[in-house]
């Protein structure tokens, strides 16, 4: 068995599993946020059980729309609040941060443990060794009641990494590159296992960025393994990290990827750094390094969204918030920010955005013809200063 299969076998209490088997797994954590929780709660109540499977292992987190941008958004919070009180489960409702970051900081699953969240970016926790499976509200409701999740053991594609990254290349560039080679559906229903000596290039935070976008490639589970190559997998791809350049995803697909250099010079109007993909301390450090003593281009709005209060606290302690403000950028409250087009930076058809978020579908951040380019924080910050898409490390002072 490969690492994904070993973990799934353990969760299913089986000696062995193989691709294609239907199994029932024990779940470590179940969570939902303000977009998915109201329907999950509705479905949970429909089941008709009087308790959740383990009140310490079921959580609700308000991250998508905080503070409320409408009465309806506020009503969603009340639905969650009532449920949390009634069933005695933790709720984060004061803008503590994005669900995947809160899970890492406050409710971290052990390696191999199953994390089931009603959110597609649950795969983020593969960066710290847990098995993250994104589900919808109904499946989350069933897991809240039963503590179990049924799934089909995925065939596993292993990406084996060697070499070292160039200085201006980051985890984000690597996962965009995987989008370039795999496209959006080659990995559908499969497991993506990342191994090899090259994984040492990536901190846990960078690994979370990489796993976060596994869902953009269609994968069911994305997981970092060890430096050792695994043999019991469906397919192995070897990648020499030293060959990678900074990457960028053009509208309107996260897999529509090229080198940043290929489109350098394109004028932009908004930059967003943050989200569950790239809102951690290391990401904010790239922004602060780039903006220190400089100004964001007059044509550009730059929005910086820490993934959590802990990240924001670190930014303040290190003086980065001041650097960002003095560069004429805006630090928003921790959370999902404008990533999904409901508040805090909605774009019009005239906008061209460089964003460190994970999706650039039509209308994702507002207007349907608004253009979103996905890139690393370093590329985003360099582009914000220049007012045009810029390869990081090449912009002159």
């Amino acid at each position, binding site marked *: 068995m490969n690492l994904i299969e070993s973990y799934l076998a353990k969760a299913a209490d089986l000696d062995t599993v193989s691709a294609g088997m239907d199994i029932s797994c024990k779940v470590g954590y179940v969570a939902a946020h303000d977009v998915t929780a109201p329907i999950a709660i509705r479905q949970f109540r429909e089941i008709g059980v009087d308790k959740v499977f383990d009140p310490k292992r079921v959580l609700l987190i308000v991250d998508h729309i905080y503070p409320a941008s409408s009465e309806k*958004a506020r009503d969603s919070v009340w639905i969650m609040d009532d449920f949390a009180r009634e069933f005695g489960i933790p709720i984060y409702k004061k803008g503590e941060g994005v669900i995947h970051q809160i899970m890492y900081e406050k409710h971290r699953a052990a390696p191999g443990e199953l994390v089931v969240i009603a959110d597609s970016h649950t795969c983020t926790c593969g960066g710290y060794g847990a098995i993250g499976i994104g589900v919808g509200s109904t499946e989350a409701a069933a897991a809240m009641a039963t503590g179990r999740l049924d799934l089909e053991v995925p065939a596993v594609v292993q990406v084996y990494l060697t070499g070292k990254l160039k200085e201006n290349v980051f985890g984000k560039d690597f996962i965009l590159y995987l989008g370039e080679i795999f496209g959006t559906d080659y990995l559908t229903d499969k497991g993506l296992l990342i191994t090899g000596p090259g994984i040492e290039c990536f901190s846990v935070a960078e690994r979370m960025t990489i796993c976060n976008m596994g869902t953009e490639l269609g994968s069911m589970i994305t997981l970092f393994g060890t430096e050792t190559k695994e043999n019991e997998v469906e397919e192995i791809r070897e990648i020499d990290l030293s060959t990678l350049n900074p990457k960028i995803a053009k509208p309107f697909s996260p897999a529509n990827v090229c080198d940043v250099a290929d489109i350098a010079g394109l004028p932009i109007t908004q930059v967003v750094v943050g989200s569950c993909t790239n809102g951690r301390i290391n990401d904010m450090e790239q922004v602060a390094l780039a903006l220190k003593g400089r100004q964001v281009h007059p044509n550009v709005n730059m929005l910086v969204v820490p993934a959590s209060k802990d990240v924001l606290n670190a930014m303040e302690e290190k003086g980065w918030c001041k650097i960002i403000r003095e560069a004429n950028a805006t630090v928003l409250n921790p959370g999902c920010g404008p990533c999904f087009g409901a508040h805090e930076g909605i774009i019009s058809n005239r906008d061209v955005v460089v964003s460190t978020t994970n999706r650039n579908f039509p209308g994702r951040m507002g207007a349907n013809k608004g253009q979103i380019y996905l890139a690393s924080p370093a590329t985003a910050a360099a582009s914000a200063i220049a007012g045009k898409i810029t390869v990081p490390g090449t912009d002159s002072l």
Partner: protein
Amino acid sequence: MEVIKGRVFVLGDDVDTDQILPGYAMAEPFDQLGKYAMAGAPGLDFLNRVQPGDIIVAGRNFGCGSSREQAPIALKMAGVGLVVAAGFARIFRRNAINIGLPVYVAEIADVLKDGDIIEVDMVKGTVRYAEGQVTAKPLSENVLKTLDYGGLIPRVRAELGISQ
């Protein structure tokens, strides 16, 4: 449930959840979601054209993106009876089945146009249209069982022994 006949509505590849149910509509009350079906693709004029029982036929990777269950719920509320696509994103596919909206994998979008009639047998694995038919993999027993219950929640209730 196993055989569904209807008028088709043809869409392309990579129809994402932001097109099916855009972010601005995610906080809408449950019973209002049908009003936003395909609102993220305004050019389609979907709500004015869709009729109860219509079948969406699409290309690869239908439902990619978000886990928002509002997306299949909106389609179901708007009257869509079945989605047939060359491929589905995993979470969308499971969400649809879990709320009792059948989804079926078959490559047929290229030979159909809006308004054509098809008949889909998800147990035998056939999609028939005026000029012929294509074969595809039958739905698994597990999926058929969930659909027969009308979705995951009634199935879980039955499995937990909770009576009506």
